[in-house]
């Protein structure tokens, strides 16, 4: 097991390097640059700025310097857009925010999604099933850019219960709305996957054996059916978790949370190379990590999988 984890982490290093090189090439080949604007700068000024950020260097040298700084000093460089701020600063400020509401969204989506799915499956074709399926379809067809303004309209403007934006260091009343907006559609997907997976498991031969053994229904569901049901849910959860904790630009925009999603999109618009690279590597590393976690959880569910 430990050997397997080490091996996977060892593989992660070249994967991240390839990710860096590819993103760098893509950005380099895209036309335009961070300092192009509608009013062209005088060539001397432009040359000065480019020299300051090292953009006048040949491509291989730029990338070599970048990789060197990242690997040896964990330095992702200065932002091209926000003066006097480094990428490390931006991530250090934005990521904890995103992590907070992403984590709670994940907890809520998983808890409610799985409960809803299981309840629907064991009461298949009853009002409970129809309600659960109804809720999850409803939640799915309401994307978060519709959900967010609706929530603000209702809870902030109409009821006046919750603040409609801001972060305030993550006080609970500021967290509720972004979490709700982000969690619902994930919850809906998890509920649907859980329901169909549970229905399939309930039709297997080993569940029939458990029934023939005279076990109470609850024990059959919890002890015999639950783990295999979670297999497909788990494969969905890996990427979903990364999606949630790297946040959504829409959540950041609607609720002015100051999360990292906002920076990511802004940096793409403004060709803020170093921020794009920094966040890409962050997302890449997280994806690799959570896929590893999911694979380890598989082994917990299925004794046939041993690393």
């Amino acid at each position, binding site marked *: 097991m430990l*050997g397997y984890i*080490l*091996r996977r982490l060892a593989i992660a290093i070249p994967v991240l390097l390839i990710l860096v090189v590819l993103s760098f090439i893509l950005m380099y080949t895209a036309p335009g640059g961070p300092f192009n604007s509608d009013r062209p700068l005088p060539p001397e000024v432009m040359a000065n700025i480019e020299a300051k950020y090292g953009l006048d260097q040949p491509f291989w040298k730029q990338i070599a310097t970048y990789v060197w700084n990242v690997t040896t000093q964990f330095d992702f460089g200065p932002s091209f857009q926000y003066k006097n701020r480094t990428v490390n600063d931006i991530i250090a400020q934005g990521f904890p925010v995103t992590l907070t509401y992403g984590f709670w969204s994940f907890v809520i989506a998983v808890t409610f999604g799985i409960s809803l799915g299981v309840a629907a499956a064991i009461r*298949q074709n009853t009002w409970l099933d129809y309600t659960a399926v109804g809720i999850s379809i409803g939640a799915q067809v309401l994307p978060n850019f519709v959900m967010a303004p609706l929530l603000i309209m209702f809870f902030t403007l109409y009821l006046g219960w919750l603040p409609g934006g801001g972060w305030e260091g993550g006080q609970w009343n500021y967290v509720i709305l972004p979490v709700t907006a982000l969690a619902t559609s994930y919850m809906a997907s998890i509920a649907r996957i859980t329901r169909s997976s549970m229905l399939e498991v309930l039709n*297997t*031969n*080993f569940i*029939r*054996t*458990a*029934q*023939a*053994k*005279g*076990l*109470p*229904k609850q*024990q059959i569901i919890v*002890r*015999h059916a639950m*783990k*295999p049901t979670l297999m497909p849910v788990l494969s969905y959860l890996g990427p979903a978790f990364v999606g949630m904790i790297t946040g959504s630009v829409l959540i950041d925009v609607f609720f002015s949370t100051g999360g990292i999603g906002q920076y990511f999109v802004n940096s793409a618009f403004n060709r803020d190379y170093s921020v794009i690279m920094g966040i890409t590597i962050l997302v890449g590393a997280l994806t690799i990590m959570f896929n590893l976690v999911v694979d380890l959880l598989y082994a917990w*569910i*299925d*004794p*046939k999988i*041993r690393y």
Partner: protein
Amino acid sequence: MALLDVKNLSITFETPDGDVEAVKGINLSIEPGECLGIVGESGSGKSQTMMAIMGLLAKNGAATGSATFNGQEMLNVSVAEANKVRGADVAMIFQDPLTSLTPHLTVGQQMREVLDVHRNLSGAEAKKLCLDWLERVRIPEAKHRIDQYPHQLSGGMRQRVMIAMAMLCSPKLLIADEPTTALDVTVQAEILDLMANLQKEENTAIALITHDMGVVARMCDRVAVMRHGEYVEEGQIDALFHNPQHPYTRMLLDAMPRIDRPHEAAEVTLTQSENILNVKDMNVKFDIRVAGGLFGKKLPLRAVDGISFDLARGETLGIVGESGCGKSTLARAVLQLVPPTTGSVLWMGRETAGLDRQAMKPLRKDLQIVLQDPLASLNPRMTIAASIAEPLKTFQAELSSNERMHKVAEMMERVGLDRNMINRYPHELSGGQNQRVGIARAMINRPELVICDEAVSALDVSIQAQIVALLKEFQTDMGLSMMFISHDLSVVRDISHRIMVLYLGRVVELADRDTIYTNPIHPYTKSLISAVPIPDPRIERTRPRIQLPGELPSPLDPGAGLRFLPSKRHCDPNYRPQLNEVAPGHWVAEHDSLEEIMETEARQLAS
């Protein structure tokens, strides 16, 4: 009073095409301690009857009538009510032991929960009872096995675990639904012996649901025959076998291929003797990744381990062996569907081993295969006519579509399919009909060699007999050669000229079919043949069985190849037993005598 008394039981399934009556008002009873065989072909409702009694019908099924166990009604009672009886006084084991145990719970966990629920036993006491039962069903190293997961056990072992689990609360009735159908013959024989012993020692009544008259003859006191959800006939075992009243019972008994007595019609004579296929020293190796080291390591699995044989024009070579013996891999390697690792395959004198796809293509017209699962091996999106016509498009592209359809219709009639079925899809056909499609597809280009890989194994006995007859007809008409692969020795006997017995990728015995059955020499062949149940209770009860000690070893175990030659193990563990010609055409692999093998095995167990 009868232990189980079923009166006027009917079962109806609600389907999108309307209600289907699966069981139509049957009556049956089981006395304490007796073994009742419930026999019938697929769709006869034999399993559903017992499922209804256990409260295990699918959600769309409804049962009416009454079924009382010990005077207590079992039909249509609440789950809580049913749970007082099932698992405790009535236990059930199922056909497929590979999927019938919960994969993520250990053997011990699954067994202990039965005791916990019904006897309120847990802890050391429960564990001890579980261990006792695992030992009683003869699971070796039970102490170690009890903490293993189902996938770490072989199919036969898992069925033993199922039986041990069923017997934990000493049930009065054990319902066994095709308990040995998915198992190899030697394993089947052991499981049946085990159940017979339990019946005697524990006085447990057994309801044995099966399609196999041989199993019935070995096990049952009384037999009930079912067909299309109705009761056909019932009687004491001897009376029913020797004096069947109903024509359907007689038909079932007649259709059953018998290892001790080949069908009269089975006489196939071989006239020509020109070899069309020579296989020489064929090896197929697969690399199996196992745990170990930082990156795991690979072990070679020798699926086919140096097999040589010839096949004459018009000849049928039967290939038998238990699961994992390499019979299907051999078939695929002969057809170059899996490339042989080493060795040569001469087809009509031409080397085909190592030919690439393009070079192989023209030869494929003459080399065909019929597969085991008739439904799964046809494309579900193609009409059966399209499936049959496809080989014509490849090899007789010059035909106009009218000519092609004409040929297809002709072939369909030939294999016994109605011309009107031309636009049907595989799922609309029965298993037997689908296998006829598979045969039509294989035969339409008049091939020289057809390999039947378990082609009749999934079919009911009556259909099986028809398909075998059809294959023989084709052989006589077209002079075609066949390799007939099966785990069922009785069927192989009916169709083959010569029979080759495989064990872990090697030939252990090869002879003409009568010799193999009347004068087997290798202990493995002997044990295989003695394990096949004969559908005649008088013969079956008195027949001695040759039992080999221990389980079939894993093919990855390097010592496995010398299981029958233990005296060589010490000098050269990589030695391969060589084939000797003991009589003209009768080849037997080197082996020690049965007594010596038993002794070595016993010594090993002791140490």
